């Protein structure tokens, strides 16, 4: 066994230990430990990615001495390693970009708690990505929920606590359904490891036994994860949670936490149920329908919003709709488009949240559109970054959003029954996206002459500006050289079963 095969396990354990150690550290020390942890994890994930690409197949790492089907396992392939790498990079950038706001908004002497929570959040995300055991996945889903709730309410005001309560309630409904579905599937198959479950499910379907319980458990798990990742009708908690928490939390929640659940759903579809069996249950049609509705209603809510942070939050609802629409196509191509959109949305949405905070800061802290007039001139870095993020979300070539829309359209054309609704809604949603994002961009670049607000230059905000530049580069790289990424996703998916 190569030494690199230890890396996924090491990175998860490092996060857990960093979380424990941070709880006894001072604010500054916890911050540096967290930054070091994220850097190390980025490197470890990058090594794992190159290793899995070089051996061309995933590897299984046995936790403890018990082999399958009794023991616990970690499984890492190209797709998992790519996700882990991306999660670490985005989290590192989001935390650095929002650090000055965190210091402002959280009581002094309490920010170390924020880093404890983000270490735990990263451990749960990595465990969700790598684990091969369904019950381990459930436990880490709950850790993820608790850590995310902490990230929302670390900024103490009435709004954030209420948002955290609403978030917890919806999340708990979702994880209750996930747990029940998981227990039913365990009773049907007698296994908890994904690969063994899949064999047993295939046997059940071949013998035509226990069809109704099987479908019920698939539905329960899918709906549970849809609720947790804020698919359209379950998104009521989202604008408050993203809109009022501190900016790093908003960026991490929108681009990583919901994506972790979606990735778990992908794993369930491919590695537990099997793609064809999942497709035959027709649940994909329901996901497709709600994805389309989310794309339209999320955008309409965003247009009606008068608060820039909440507008970006509602835009997330629409983007989650895109991802579920890709699932709903029921084809491999649609799945690849969805996974690429997970990456592209993560890179873009965190950029938008962090850029928006720069714009509101030079507008007296107000998030109303009228106050933002001309803020693109007062903080040039944030203005440019917000424009790049908006163009990417709308789907202008050169940026990552264009590639995901291209992949979605290609997937739609290949699916004859769903082509027409998918293309029409994709078109409408793009126009709606353009309306609210371009409205904001025009607003921030409308000159208003003399104001009471001060201008900000690079010297005042060096780290913040560097983070924005890194995000812009990430977006453009994903947009220009998307083919290698798509190839990795394709290779990962083909060895995913």
């Amino acid at each position: 066994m190569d030494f690199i095969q230890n890396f996924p396990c090491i990175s998860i354990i490092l996060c857990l230990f960093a979380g424990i150690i941070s709880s006894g550290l001072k604010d500054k020390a916890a911050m540096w430990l967290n930054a070091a942890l994220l850097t190390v994890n980025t490197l470890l994930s990058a090594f794992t990615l190159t290793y899995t690409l070089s051996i061309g197949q995933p590897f299984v790492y046995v936790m403890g001495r018990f082999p399958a089907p009794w023991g616990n396992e970690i499984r890492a392939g190209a797709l998992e390693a790519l996700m882990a790498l991306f999660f670490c990079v985005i989290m590192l950038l989001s935390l650095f970009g929002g650090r000055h706001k965190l210091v402002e908004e959280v009581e002094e002497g309490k920010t170390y708690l924020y880093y404890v929570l983000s270490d735990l959040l990263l451990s749960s995300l990595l465990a969700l990505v790598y684990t091969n055991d369904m019950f381990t996945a459930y436990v880490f889903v709950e850790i993820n929920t608790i850590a995310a709730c902490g990230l929302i309410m670390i900024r103490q005001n009435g709004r954030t606590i209420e948002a955290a309560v609403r978030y917890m309630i919806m999340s708990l409904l979702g994880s209750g359904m996930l747990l029940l579905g998981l227990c039913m599937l365990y009773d049907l198959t007698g296994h908890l490891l994904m690969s063994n479950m899949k064999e047993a499910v295939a046997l059940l379907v071949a013998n035509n036994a226990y069809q109704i319980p099987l479908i019920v458990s698939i539905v329960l798990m899918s709906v549970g994860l849809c609720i947790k990742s804020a698919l359209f009708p379950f998104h009521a908690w989202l604008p408050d949670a993203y809109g009022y928490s501190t900016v790093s939390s908003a960026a991490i929640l929108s681009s990583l936490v919901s994506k972790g659940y979606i990735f778990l759903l992908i794993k369930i579809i491919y590695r537990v149920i099997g793609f064809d069996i999942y497709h035959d249950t027709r649940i994909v049609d329901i996901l497709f329908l709600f994805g389309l509705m989310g794309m339209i209603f999320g955008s309409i809510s965003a247009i009606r919003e008068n608060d820039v942070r909440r507008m970006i939050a509602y835009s997330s609802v629409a983007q989650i709709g895109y991802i579920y629409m890709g699932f709903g196509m029921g084809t491999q191509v649609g799945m690849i488009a969805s996974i690429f959109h997970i990456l592209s949305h993560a890179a873009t949405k965190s950029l938008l949240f962090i850029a928006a905070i720069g714009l509101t800061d030079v507008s007296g802290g107000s998030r109303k559109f009228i106050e933002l007039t001309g803020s693109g001139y007062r903080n040039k870095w944030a203005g440019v970054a917000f424009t790049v993020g908006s163009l990417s979300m709308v789907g202008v070539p050169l940026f990552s959003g264009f590639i995901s829309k291209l992949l979605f359209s290609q997937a739609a054309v290949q699916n004859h029954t769903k082509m027409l609704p998918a293309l029409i809604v994709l078109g409408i949603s793009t126009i709606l996206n353009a309306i609210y994002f371009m409205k904001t961009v025009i607003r921030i670049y409308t000159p208003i002459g003399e104001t009471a607000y001060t201008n900000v230059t690079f010297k005042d905000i060096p780290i913040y500006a560097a983070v924005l530049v890194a995000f812009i580069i990430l977006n453009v790289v994903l947009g220009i050289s998307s083919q290698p990424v798509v190839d990795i996703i394709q290779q990962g998916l083909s060895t995913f079963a």
Partner: protein
Amino acid sequence: MGANLFTNYGEAVAMLLFGIGFGNLLLQTNLIKKIIGLNIMDTAIYLFLAEKGYIVGRVAPIVTDGVQNMEAYINPIPSGLVLTGIVVSVSVSALMLSLTIRLYRRYHTLDLDEISKQLKKEGL
């Protein structure tokens, strides 16, 4: 169908309880009642698991009288899952209760809709 329901009455009761808990967590506006619903929901799942792991006429797999035969014991994995699940649900309940205390100190009510109304008035 009906006969199945009767022989597996434990599972049927568990599903019923799950429904009650789920409905309470979703529909009640009082936060404490919501948390009670959450606990009923989680406990229902543990009942379901315990029912599934139990095999009539067998005992827990603790070897005392030297019987090593697998046929003498129940399936211990669901019991292990229940224990893990209990730990998770305790921590989640504690978190929810602490959030409820925070909100109550601030707004002097446990009604989530009332809290939303007061927040709108604050205009935050």
